[in-house]
């Protein structure tokens, strides 16, 4: 029983990591209707920027907000420079560009900061994982309020759902997409700064976390930020319990088991546990 509880708590803690990144994934999915495969690398890069600021002696909270601001601007810049000219290219070409961005960020981080691990401080001390979960939930609430109760949040939702109609009511759709990138980059930065104290900072730190984040986002349903958070936590817990309790194969095939379960969820419920399929009457 004690083992079970401990594994549950550990799963919750790693789940917090996945939830944070899943939230960023869902954010950008809402804004651009794609999964951004470079999301994790962008978050990693932001975290390195934070690390560099800390090395230069900038205090933690100043670094925290400065990094968010820099990432926000960076995300917008990426959309304006890389994706705006490609807005008429086929979807698959966009995915290739995500892959290209992935390579660029990974390689650049390794080049600038090299590949050995770096410890990253936590503002919450010994209670880091509790703090991380709290930050994730806070972000979620913040996003909910933003999307539900602000004009610009409404405009973003409209731009994502029906770009042409949105333009016809005067929403600057191009900028909404850019804003979505900016926000996703900023949320990624927060996720990165929360994750790095747990897994240590290095250029490849997001590789697998991104995958689990995707899994969490998909299980929860890509259209639901709340679902993404729940999904992230479930994947974390599931993975730990499978590794501990599935006899014989559990420890060796932990990842595989988790993935099989995810695919199973999808087969039963193709739009995720909390995802919505648009209801349309013609």
């Amino acid at each position, binding site marked *: 029983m004690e083992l079970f509880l401990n594994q549950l708590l550990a799963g919750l803690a790693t789940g917090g990591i996945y939830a944070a990144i899943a939230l960023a994934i869902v954010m950008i999915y809402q804004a651009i209707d794609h999964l951004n495969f470079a999301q994790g690398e962008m978050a990693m890069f932001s975290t390195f920027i934070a690390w560099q600021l800390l090395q230069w002696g900038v205090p933690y909270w100043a670094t925290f907000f400065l990094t968010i601001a820099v990432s926000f601007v960076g995300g917008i810049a990426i959309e304006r420079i890389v994706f705006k000219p490609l807005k008429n290219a086929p979807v698959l070409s966009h995915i290739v560009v995500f892959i*290209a*961005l992935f390579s660029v960020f990974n*390689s650049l981080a390794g080049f600038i900061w090299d590949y050995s691990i770096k410890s990253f401080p936590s503002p919450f001390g010994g209670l880091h994982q509790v703090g991380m979960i709290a930050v994730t939930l806070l972000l979620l609430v913040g996003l909910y309020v933003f999307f539900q109760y602000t004009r610009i949040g409404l405009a973003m939702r409209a731009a994502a759902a029906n770009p042409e109609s949105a333009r016809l009511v005067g929403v600057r759709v191009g900028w909404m997409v850019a804003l979505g990138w900016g926000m996703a980059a900023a949320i990624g930065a927060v996720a990165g700064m929360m994750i790095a104290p747990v897994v240590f900072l290095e250029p490849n730190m997001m590789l697998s976390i991104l995958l689990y984040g995707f899994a969490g986002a998909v299980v929860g349903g890509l259209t639901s930020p709340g679902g993404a958070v729940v999904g992230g936590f479930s994947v974390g817990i599931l993975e730990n319990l499978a590794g501990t309790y599935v006899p014989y194969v559990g420890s060796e095939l932990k990842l595989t088991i988790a*993935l099989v379960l995810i695919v199973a969820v*999808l087969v039963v419920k193709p739009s995720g546990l909390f995802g919505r399929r648009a209801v349309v009457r013609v």
Partner: protein
Amino acid sequence: MRRTALLLAALAVALALPLFLKNFTLFQLTLVMVYAVAILGLNLLTGFNGQFSLGHSAFYAIGAYTAAILMDKFDLPYPLTLPAAGAACLVVGFLFGLPALRLEGLYLALATFALAVATPQILKFSAFEDLTGGVQGITILKPDAPFGLPLSQDQWLYYFTLAVSIVMFWAASNLVSSRTGRALMAIRDNPLAARSMGVDTALYKSLAFGVSALYTGVAGALGAIVIQFVAPDSFTFFLAVSFFVGLVVGGVGWIPGALFGGLFILFVPNWAEHISKGLAWAVYGIILILLIYIMPSGAAGFVRAVTAKLQRRAS
């Protein structure tokens, strides 16, 4: 007529290359053909049937291991391992295609991506270690040219792979222009209409998965013979991502595009490394972005635009 002439010229060049090129370059070109066949498999699925996959490294791995195990444990001659690998992948692909029926677009991409990620772990699994060699993998012997032909191993493998590739490409273009091919494309373009025309979409979609896996599996077997070695680390999801990049760069839904894709994923990383060692993958990423910028629909779109321009000028 012009097309046939072009194909014959290309074939003549391909046959003559070993007379002029070093063994190492031939080896690289052999790998290009191997990757081209793998990408062709992916193209049949994505380009002609509209199903995504970021998991084709799994089928490539199954093909490679099938070949390696048959050669290593059962002393099967290497040419016979290709049909075996193809058959194994046809079955696995078809079975994977069944649950995949329920998934669309991104969800399918993710499910297949999960398959790619899990592959190395499954290959390492200790229960299969006697067969797969576990983490150590399997080393196999490189075949000599048969019948005492005066060819080096690399030259022979080049011709062997060339022959297999020609058969695979020929079969693919026939498949695409057949009734089955039209059904596959109808499903891609308008699944509802296809169903109302009486196409059994479930069957065809699973079949497309199977055939696609078959191609990639044959490529995997060829790859194992050429590299002489299989190990879990050879089949990570990076390979699946490379295939995908090759598909898009070559052109989705255009059969010769696979060859462009193969050339791209083999040579461009090397060029990138040549330009800057420390930033090789950053350079690669930038090349990729520029390429998509110039040819948003890959080589296919580019070639089409150029031929259209030429024809317009001619007329």
